[in-house]
């Protein structure tokens, strides 16, 4: 079973990062190969310790909305981003950082958590992954 899912992580918003990691883990759990391609604002989440730093995509309310959502997640016992990321890597998920948007965002490899990044690439890398993928998403 070699179906593949490729997700462009364009947003750095907290809820969208959660969506990307939950869908990615779901796909891995069901036997698919998964690549997460981080660009633009998503790259900010690849900074060391930065996975959870994003605002909510809506209802952020200067941080109050984010607090409310985080509390609800705690009550529902939702896995942490660290846990989701660790599971993602353990199940063989791949993280690719877009070099071109790294430059636009003013990021160098040393600014990022290099341990979790499997590959650096440009749009051709994304297309290679996506063209053979059964599922492609832009989050």
């Amino acid at each position, binding site marked *: *079973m070699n179906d593949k899912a490729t997700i462009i992580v364009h947003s750095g918003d907290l809820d969208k990062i959660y969506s990307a990691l*939950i869908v990615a*883990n*779901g796909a*891995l*759990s*069901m*036997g698919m190969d998964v690549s997460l391609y981080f660009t633009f604002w998503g790259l900010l989440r690849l900074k060391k310790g930065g996975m959870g730093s994003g605002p909510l995509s809506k209802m952020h309310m200067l941080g109050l909305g984010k607090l409310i959502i985080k509390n609800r997640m705690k009550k*529902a*016992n*939702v*896995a942490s981003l660290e*846990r*989701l990321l660790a*599971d993602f890597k*353990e*199940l063989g998920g791949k993280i690719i950082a877009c070099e071109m948007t790294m430059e636009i965002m003013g990021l160098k490899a040393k600014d990022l958590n290099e341990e979790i990044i499997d590959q650096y690439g440009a749009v051709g890398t994304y297309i290679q992954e996506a063209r053979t993928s059964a599922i492609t998403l832009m989050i």
Partner: protein
Amino acid sequence: MADIKVDVRGETCPIPLVEMRKALRKADEGDTIEIIGTHPASKKEIPMAANALSVKIVSEEQVGDEWKIILQK
């Protein structure tokens, strides 16, 4: 032939699926994997994933708000 036990009671999506997948990766052919949990959606999703992965479903049962699913690799 080993029995692997997975306890995901209280865990919510996607953890039950993830832990099931991890157990399947560790298991040898013929091993059984017993998963107990409470998340209602996972009770449907784990058999669905087992079918997608061509893994045999030995049994499914529910006692109170806990379900138990046994798979065999």
